[in-house]
């Protein structure tokens, strides 16, 4: 088995790779350049019926080079870092400049364009040394324990078709010709379980996950309990008549919908006229006093980092205050267009892509209302614990929303019977207006950033069934 001490930390090596590439680029006549390197060492373990189904190790690295010439940008990347491949990568990036549009805003970030001046978070919080103490065997044991634990939660759970554990050590460095040169590293781990339950000929599934910086952050007991509950509570679910009702959204559901709203808050989507929030700065979008933040510096936020995908310092941006839209999210290019400063929201999915605008830790601030109070406020309604078809059912540009849902029917503040095979439909702006109460149970999901929301009480939404 893999020895814990055998983890390779690249550290300064990434900076050296950047410097070597910079030295090569200097031979070309280009105005500016940026070198981005990233590496990750990952483990993934899948368990099925108490045995390892799949165990995979990976260690990958790549370099992405952005060349600025004559106010045009060219990009190329390679995962092979020998001299010839890097030379070829530079040549391609230089030649790709010839084809893209010239724009005055195309130049590297300058320090005076940063909203936030000081790094607020670093390796100390992002990279946990105790992560290295876990060897493969202990992670396998962890995953096996989650399988048994979930199964033991309810006699109606007949199969656990998926238990997946994965973790990674991620390291990245950026060097640019304007003088930026820095790096950071993170550790993360994630565990997932899906439970199949059966009763009286009906089948139901329920999944849940846990995530953190080290395996010690994973609360297996909670993951097992939630997955089991989500599975068995829908057993015997029925389709209801189509009608307008109040909805109570579980945080996992609210957070997914918040992620859709976030797509329309990037300055890029606004400037390209693809945002529902175009021209709405200073307008009241929510009917209650909702606060929404993008904060790249939360100590336990999985999307926290010292600087963004183009080396701009990360901070905390208030996007909605008391229900009013305060600002869009910016990288330097879009900020220059709007004559403002970058909010540090340049995001790079990997070395394969150029920096785009996106969220980091993006969340809706919780209130002090607990779940039972939200529930008691509903006369006839639908408590939604899971949605399906988010990507095929929501169009963030037109705002139309129609997704599959399952959950439990609420009558006079009490949970009555399970409901499935129905949809909920509205449009994004109406949805924002329909949110009437916010809970205190903030939870984050690690999907497309790190998005957090408490339970939400939403009034008068169309549910389609029979």
């Amino acid at each position, binding site marked *: 088995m893999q020895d814990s001490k055998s983890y390779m930390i690249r550290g300064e090596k990434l900076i050296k790779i950047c410097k070597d590439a910079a030295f090569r680029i200097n031979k070309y006549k280009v105005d500016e350049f940026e070198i981005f390197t990233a590496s990750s060492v990952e483990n993934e373990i899948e368990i099925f019926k108490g045995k390892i189904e799949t165990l995979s*190790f990976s260690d990958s690295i790549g370099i992405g080079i952005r060349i600025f010439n004559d106010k045009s940008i060219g990009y190329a990347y390679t995962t092979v870092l020998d001299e010839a491949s890097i030379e070829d990568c530079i040549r391609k990036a230089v030649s790709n400049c010839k*084809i893209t*549009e010239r*724009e005055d805003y195309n130049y590297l970030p300058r320090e005076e364009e940063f909203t936030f001046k000081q790094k607020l978070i670093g390796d100390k919080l992002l990279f946990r040394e105790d992560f290295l103490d876990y060897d493969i065997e202990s992670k396998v044991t962890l995953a096996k324990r989650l399988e048994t634990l979930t199964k033991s939660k309810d006699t109606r759970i007949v199969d656990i078709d998926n238990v997946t554990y994965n973790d990674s050590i991620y390291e990245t460095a950026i060097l640019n010709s304007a003088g930026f040169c820095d790096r950071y590293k993170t550790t993360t781990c994630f565990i997932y379980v899906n439970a*199949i339950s059966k009763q009286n000929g009906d089948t139901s*599934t329920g999944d849940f996950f846990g995530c953190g910086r080290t395996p010690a952050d994973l609360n297996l007991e909670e993951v097992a309990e939630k997955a089991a509950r989500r599975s068995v509570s829908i057993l015997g679910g029925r389709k209801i008549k189509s009608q307008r009702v109040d909805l109570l959204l579980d945080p996992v559901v609210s957070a997914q919908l918040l992620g859709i709203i976030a797509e329309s808050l990037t300055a890029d989507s606004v400037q390209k006229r693809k945002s529902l929030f175009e021209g709405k700065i200073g307008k009241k979008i929510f009917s209650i006093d909702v606060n929404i933040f993008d904060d790249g510096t939360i100590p336990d936020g999985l999307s926290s980092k010292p600087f963004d995908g183009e080396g701009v310092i990360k901070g905390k941006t208030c996007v909605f205050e008391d229900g009013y839209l305060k600002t869009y999210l910016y990288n330097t290019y879009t900020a220059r267009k709007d004559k403002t400063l970058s909010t540090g929201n340049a995001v790079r999915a990997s070395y394969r892509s*150029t920096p785009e605008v996106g969220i980091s830790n993006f969340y809706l601030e919780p209130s002090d209302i607990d779940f039972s109070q939200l529930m008691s406020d509903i006369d006839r309604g639908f408590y939604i614990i899971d949605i399906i078809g988010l990507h095929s*059912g929501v169009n963030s540009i037109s705002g139309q929303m129609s997704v599959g849902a399952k959950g439990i029917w609420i009558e006079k503040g009490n949970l009555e019977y399970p409901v499935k095979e*129905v949809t909920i439909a509205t449009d994004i702006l109406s949805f924002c207006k329909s949110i009437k109460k916010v809970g205190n149970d903030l939870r984050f999901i690690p999907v497309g950033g790190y998005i957090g929301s408490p339970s939400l009480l939403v009034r008068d939404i169309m549910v389609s*069934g029979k």
Partner: protein
Amino acid sequence: MIEDRLTKEILNTLLKNGADFSEIFVQRRVFNNLRLEDSKIENSSSGYELGCGLRLWVGDSTFYAYVDSLEKNKLLNAAKVLSSAINGSSSLKVLNLTETKSSYNTNIKKFPGKVHPGSKKNTLEAVDKSSRDFSPTIIQVTSALSDAEEEIYIANSYGAFSFEKMVKTFLAVNVVARKRKDVRTGYKSLARTSGYEAFDFKNPENLAREASKIAVDMLDAVNAPSGELPVVLGPAFGGVIFHEACGHGLEADAVMKNASVFKDKIGKKIASDAVTAVDDSTLKYRWGSYKFDDEGYPSSKTVLIKDGILQSYIYDLRTSKKLGAKQTGNGRRQSFRHVPVPRMSNTYIESRDEDSGSIIKSINKGIYAREFAGGQVDPATGDFVFGISEGYLIENGKISFPIKDATLIGNGPEILKRIEAVGNNLDFAPGFCGKSGQLISNEVGQPTIKIDKITIGGTRD
């Protein structure tokens, strides 16, 4: 791509501590992407990836590792590390490697590397112009053109090896139209496992106009109805219903794990008589086609359902061994960084003889759905959804008003039995499918079909 001797050394190193099977998957890929938005080429990027995935089995367990390199030392070292994950001994040894043959052959005419970047730029500019010229209501057009040239070499401890060169070309157009406060979108894509002759198969400017037409037509959309109604699904991308309602549930890994509603249903009636469904990875140049699957098994045509009766699941090597069935050539992976799993290739419902016009005429009140935004399924329960992105009301046998986007929701086994009519106009559409964190290319297809009742998730009371 690597020498026979080294291949054997790696396979044997993987076997030595008691493995039952070992495999090496080598891949080289060169990519180019061009994106146009706001009538400007805003991104031009290129990529180069080379690497090798190593796999071994012991009993029911799979062990996997990969290396971003083809250097001999790195490969052998990775093989040693991976084989040390198990402790036993094996007498298995690979002595000879024999090349696997495939009947799928291509003749690529315009290799991406030979197409001038300026001409790619011209294509996107023409797409942009055609889209915008369609209507003054169009406020944004995003188009992207990407191509890939790749080589894949696979060898395993059964002594088989395969080699394939593959070329892919992909063009997508996203259009946004606006009239007063209403904003609508239209999307069309063209994707072929071929070079730039893909544009002879379908003209990019026509594709652009089709995307624009959807966005513009939908500007007048009324609220979609809510509740159960008869639905007619148009040809080509309508096939996403079979992909979700049934296809994923037929993938043998779900069957093996007791997580499919179609388990123990071979030879049984699972769909109405009108349904014959096929997975075929040998359809020339289609988006889900290949010479070999990602385990080196030749591509093939598999009849999944014949006249409503289930014939076969969709297998990769591991599930075919485990369930004692013949491989179907559906072991697929996103790249050398991923473990192969059973996946669909080009999956479609075959034509019958009904005329699509008469299918619509048979409905008094219902929905005609023409384009879709994809879908999702839970294979264990069979519950699935898919989103309509271009739909119309049917009133008294005629197509009337366009409707706003709505999701259709149903249960696979129930819906398959409710397919009442199947038309004669089979067509295909390319797309991407995500499963186990891996995105792969495939096509769906069908003629016009009618479902007698399904829940439509509109907003109309």
